[in-house]
């Protein structure tokens, strides 16, 4: 299995805190990889380093053989086109309608509304949203609907990789299930490499691989189907929510 993303010895310090302390990780092409970890472990920062929103202090992030940490500003802008990023709280632009939010990349390129509208409608259907929301504003939608709009916006650029930052945080179990199913559908139909940041153990059902981030390092990487049989002490403790084990309860507060 080839890897579309290869992270080698990635280090990032914020203030006195070592967020990424030598991360090594390979994301297999066309599969769903879940990165688990406790709150505050730097999972979102890892995603932001992968896409280029944050620059690491050292280490390399190879995307299809190109080290994205050394790209020029213009080359990085081109690199963004390969990625889709679904933000934790969708990050829709408040002042724009749903149509404008989803179609923003095409509208900014100067495409007419007549050209963009059918494409936006198609993406809305892909994320199981009715066309009634087109001219509403983000504030008029529920959390789950906003996340689906965020995904539709990402799909517009036909990315090779989609990064999801805690896609079900703050959602009820039923809506979480709907979002998980949607992510799974996208991955199967569009063959997109998917990276999901989560601490929701339900996500294993939809994933191919699981990585566990703890104290700036990847402590476990393995097949999602066999995760419950793993005797790795970190993953064993994390997925069972055990207080005793190598992951200390106060670890985040002390660092």
């Amino acid at each position: 299995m080839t890897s579309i993303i290869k992270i080698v010895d990635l280090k990032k310090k914020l203030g006195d805190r070592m967020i990424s302390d030598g991360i090594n990780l390979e994301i297999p092409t066309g599969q769903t990889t879940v990165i688990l970890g406790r709150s505050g472990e730097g999972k979102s920062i890892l995603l932001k380093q992968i896409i280029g929103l944050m620059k690491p202090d050292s280490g390399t992030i190879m995307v299809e053989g190109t080290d994205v940490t050394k790209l020029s500003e213009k080359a990085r802008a081109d690199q963004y086109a390969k990625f889709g990023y679904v933000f934790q709280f969708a990050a829709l632009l408040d002042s724009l309608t749903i149509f404008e939010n989803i179609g923003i990349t095409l509208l900014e390129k100067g495409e007419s509304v007549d050209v963009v509208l059918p494409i936006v409608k198609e993406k809305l259907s892909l994320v199981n949203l009715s066309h009634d929301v087109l001219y509403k504003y983000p504030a008029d939608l529920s959390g789950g609907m906003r996340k689906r709009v965020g995904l539709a916006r990402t799909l517009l650029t036909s990315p090779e990789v989609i990064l999801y930052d805690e896609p079900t945080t703050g959602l009820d179990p039923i809506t979480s299930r709907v979002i998980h199913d949607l992510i799974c559908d996208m991955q199967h139909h569009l063959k997109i490499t998917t990276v999901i940041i989560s601490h929701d153990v339900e996500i294993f059902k939809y994933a191919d691989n699981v990585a566990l981030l703890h104290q700036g390092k990847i402590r476990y990487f393995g097949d999602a189907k066999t995760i419950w049989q793993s005797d790795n002490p970190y993953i064993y403790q994390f997925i069972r929510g055990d207080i005793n084990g190598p992951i200390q309860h106060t670890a985040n507060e002390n660092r």
Partner: protein
Amino acid sequence: MVHLISLLGRITLQVCELLGSFSLFVFNVLRALVTKRLRLHRVITQMEVIGVGSLIIVILTGTFSGMVFALQSYIGFQRVGGEQFIGAVVALGMVRELGPVLTGLMITGRAGSGIAAEIGTMRITEQIDALTTLSINPYNYLIVPRLVASTIILPFLALFAMLCGIVGGYVVCVHVLQLSAEDYISNVSTCVEMRDIIGGMIKSAVFGFILSAVGAYQGFFAHGGARGVGAATTQAVVTGSIMILISNYMLTKMLEHL
């Protein structure tokens, strides 16, 4: 003594860092302005938000400043028997100084803080990151329209303030102080030259640039949730006002021989 030197060093470093970061920000905005397509519809929207939305406070500020200026001038001129010069003093004061500066300060309070709050909220809710990941230059999309709009609209707002100030002075001189209307009008038309008006408008354009650049900078680098946005908004007003007052002296000196 060592503590004092260390404190001085720290402050110097912080000031240099701030100036460097602000210069880089302005450079990025200007580069986006030159290299990317200018979205005229977005500039016009911002001109409406900043300009039309601020018209009432500019009219009120200009009118009452002119009225107070006329009253205060009367007290001084009466002592030396020069009441007939009040019109000239009010008009020149409003056109060269008070119109541009008061407009700049009022718009900093209203629109500069608004820019900081809006962009700051977009920063903490990751909307700016979202734009970046969609390959949309946030400088070009968010900052350039605001900067261009405020630089264009401020001179016109200042013109309103100047006119209202002169009219306010007229009302006080003629209807309150019972001075001659002809004297006031002839004083104004004799003393105020086109170069005074152009100088005032140039100042206003610079103030417009400053207030939106400072507001956008504070918002763009806001962090720390709602508290951070609040702090960015306050900083935008304080820093913007101080920069307007300092640059006003320099501009006055530079435009002396216009």
